[in-house]
Structures are given as C-alpha cells and as structure tokens.
C-alpha cells in the first residue's frame, strides 16, 4: 500500500525525495499557466480546471520540502495574478503559497503515490485554496468570494480526477534514482 503514515519521519532525509530533470518544474509551471490561459478562451467549462494549482500540489508533494514548495506556490500564484486583470498581485500568490507549504508538509509525512490518496489530497487542497482566496478577498479586497458552493464542489472533483491523470503523467518526468 502506497498510502502510509510515517510518524517518526520528521526530517526529509528519511523519506524518498523525487528528483526531476533540469527545468522540469519551471517548465511544467509555465506550461500549466500558458495552458490555463490558452484554454480559457474555449469556454466557461475551463473554470472547473485549475492547472496551476495541480502543478503546485504535485511538486509540493513530490519534493517534500516546505520551503521550496511554498516558494514554487508563490511564484506560480504571482504569475497567475500577473496574467489576470481583476486581481492585484498576490491574490493567488498568497493562496498558492499556503497550498505549496501544506502540500509539501503533507508529502513529507504521507506517501502520496496512490491515486485515491492523490484524489483526496487534491480535493481537500482545492477547497483549502478557495478558503484562503475567500478570506483574502473579503479581508483585503472587500469582495464577496464564496467559501463553498456547488460549483466549487464540482470544480474540486473535476480537478481531482484531472489531477490524478496529470500526476501520473508528471511521474514520468522523474529522474531515475
């Protein structure tokens, strides 16, 4: 069983840290944002997909280093903000910073190789991401953003399904140990 809790493993030296070829992480992150922006013009169904979030979660979990996870999340989020008109820089950046941190912290303790555990993690972090967005939006921008609704539930499930497939694809980019 891949899903295993390791209470004694507090340092990353004791868990398997996946390595990737040079440029894989940056390339994947940029590609996710480009694809997200590119698909956006093909209809509102793309609102159910959050590719930058999936990439943040994947590399956070795989690298298992909270520092790099949160920095990657911040970079992806800020780039996402920069490409949107409605949001000030930092809106998605804050949310994805938290997601990157949590994902890598979870990855350092739980082995997330099983599709079911990956699906569950994506769904949970999707809603966590939305909650941070809603708090930021309400507290700093005075904009009513929903914490949870049916649309978000469907979006999280769609992202979860897509994420499992995407993660399997990204697994192939790992450098052999």
């Amino acid at each position, binding site marked *: 069983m891949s899903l295993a809790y390791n209470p004694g493993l507090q340092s990353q030296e004791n868990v398997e840290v996946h390595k990737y070829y040079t440029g894989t992480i940056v390339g994947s992150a940029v590609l996710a944002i480009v694809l997200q*922006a590119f698909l956006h013009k093909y209809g509102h169904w793309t609102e159910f997909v959050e590719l930058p979030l999936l990439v943040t979660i994947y590399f956070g979990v795989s690298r298992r280093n909270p520092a790099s996870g949160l920095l990657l999340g911040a970079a992806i989020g800020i780039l996402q903000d920069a490409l949107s008109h409605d949001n000030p820089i930092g*809106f998605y950046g804050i949310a994805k910073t938290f997601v990157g*941190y949590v994902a890598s912290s979870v990855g350092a303790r739980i082995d997330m190789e099983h599709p079911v555990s990956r699906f569950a993690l994506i769904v949970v972090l999707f809603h966590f991401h939305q909650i941070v967005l809603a708090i930021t939006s309400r507290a700093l921008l005075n904009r009513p953003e929903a914490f949870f609704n049916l649309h978000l539930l469907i979006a999280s499930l769609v992202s979860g399904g897509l994420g499992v497939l995407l993660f399997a694809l990204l697994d192939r980019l790992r450098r052999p140990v």
Partner: protein
Amino acid sequence: MVDIPTRRRPLALLAIVVVAQVLLLAFQVRHGGAARDKNVPLIRYWAVETIMPLERAASWMFSGVGGVWSGYIDLRHERKQNIDLRAENGELKLRNHELETEFEEARRMDALLQFRHEHPEAPMAVAEVVATTRAMVAAHVMGGSADPASHTVFINRGAHDGIRREMGVITPDGIVGKIVEVFPHAAQVQLISDRESGVGAMFAASHAHGIVKGTGDPDPQMDYIVNEERVQPGDEIITSGDDRIFPKGLSVGVVADDKAASPFQVIHIRTAAHLDRLEDVLVLLTSRDLNLKSVSEPSAAHAEPSNSKVPSSGAAQHQAAPAAKLSKPGATASPKTTGPKTASPKPETQKPAAVKAATPTSTISKPAAPKAPDSQPAGRTN
C-alpha cells in the same frame, strides 16, 4: 541575530512570503484605483511579454494544425468558402448597422433642418464635428486570463498597432468588451460579462437607457430599468453611446429573462457576440470622445489628422472615411457622432426649448452656407 531552529525555518519562510504578499496586496488595493489608470505594473508587463510569445506560439500551432487538418484534408474548399462567407457576412452586418444608424441620423438632421427653416427666429449655436475617425483593426484572440473567474482575453494587437485603452472591441454579431491593458504586441480585453464591466445601452424599440453590467457569469445584466418599463424576452438591446467607448446602435444582445425587483428590474441578457468562443474580433480605434467644436473657435483644429491612430497597412484593417461635418448640407455622420444627447427619435415634435436642452453641443448650422468648411462664420448664427 535571531537563531531560528531548522525545523521552524520553513514556517518562518512561509510567514515572510505571505506577509510580503499581503503588504504588496495592501499597497495595490490602497492605490489601485488611480494607479491602474496610469501605468501597467512592471510585473504584469514582464509576465505578459514573457508569456505572450508562448501564447502566440500555442495559438499559432493550434491554428496551424487545425487549419491543415480541417482546411486541407477534411473539409478542403468548403471550410475556406465558409470562412470567406462568414467574413463577408460579418462585414455586411457591420455595414448594415452603419447604414441604419446613418439613415436615422440623416432623418433626425433633416427634421432639425426643417425645424430650423420653419423657426428662423429660434437662436441656435453652430457647431461642427471635427476629426472623428471610424476605423477598426482586426485581431485574433490568443488566450484568456489565467484566473478561471476572470472574463478577459488577450488579443494579438497592441500599442504598435494603434491599440489604446478604453477602445471598444466588437464582432460582427455584437460588442465584446473594451481594452483594459495595452502591451507592445498584445492587449487585454475585458469582456462585457466581466464583473467589473459596464456598457451604456438601451432598448432598440423603446430607447429606454440603462447599463449592461457583467456579473461574472456568462450572461450580463441590464441595470437601471424601472419596473414600469415593459420588457419582453427577446427584446433587442443596443449600445447607447453613453459610455463614449462604443458608437450608438451596435448590438449588445437580447433579453433572456426579466423579473421585477426594487427599485429596478433584473434583466438577464443573452449576448449577441459568442463570448465563450471568440476567435477573431475587431477593435474600434476610436478611444477619443466625440470632438464637437464650435466654429467660433479657430479652425486650426480642422487640420488634425483624422486617421492618426490608424495603422498604415494590413489587409485585415478596415478604415472608414472621417465623418462628415454636420455643418455641410446633406452630409451624414458616423455612428460615433450620434451620442445620447442628439435629438430624440421624433424631433419633429420638439419645441425650440427642447431642442436646445437636448442638444447642448451638437446643434446644427445653417444648411445653405456655401463657404468652405474651414471658413465657416464664427459665433452663433440665427
């Protein structure tokens, strides 16, 4: 020096990064209103300039592969013919809009001139329209926003093509949105469905004015229509020209449904343009307000080049002649000249005071002035 335990370092880094972004956010929020109207933030500039070539490449590859497959293998000539016919249909729709608007304008001017003849004692200011350009540039939609909730798209035309902020973006079917950010080779278009969008509009039949506001959902709403106004599903909504972005008379959409509310009706609109599958759009190169100039002022303004914002070449660019001056007898004006303050739909029923009140700046001149436009008599004529 503060010694942070190794295990706490990621947490400290998290706090630093989040606090930095919160400060960044707070700075933007506090100064956002004014700053956003001035310069594009540098990070947006860099991001767009970095990402746009990739977007352009993706769009080019996608269009190229799709074009090869469907244009040369699958559908061959039918697809090309279909594209040509759609383009022609679009041009004809636009031309039809122009002609309809010009016809209405001419009819109003005719009625006003007749009124002027019948009441020579009524004092009227002389004004003329100068340097009004009607020109468009075609653009291809490259991609949307990275924010799934944002209703914006990027087009492959930018400052180098004459694009400026606050220019209207349309398709032959109807209006699309306006330019909100301009980069050297790209521009960002805020769709009318975006929650920060607002467009001056009116009902084509009743001429009741309102504002079409985006809601963040695919269908925008028409606001500020009182409950006494009778609205039916299917009623056509057109631009009113109130916003000084879109000329009067362009199609916005039709009423999808409406319900009474306090104080105004809630009217949902089905947009005329297909905002969820935009491919090619037209940018109206007319961000300037209608320039009405009294002839009492020096006529040097006549020399202003009317097409200064129009790119000099490009097969996809459509440019119309500068609008005729209203002081010329029998001349017609472009849709841009028909602002909301022009005469009412039935000017022949107006009293002199109503004419003055309704047309504070766009009043008419004597029709029989035989002089050249640049040597019009100054001041008010009677």
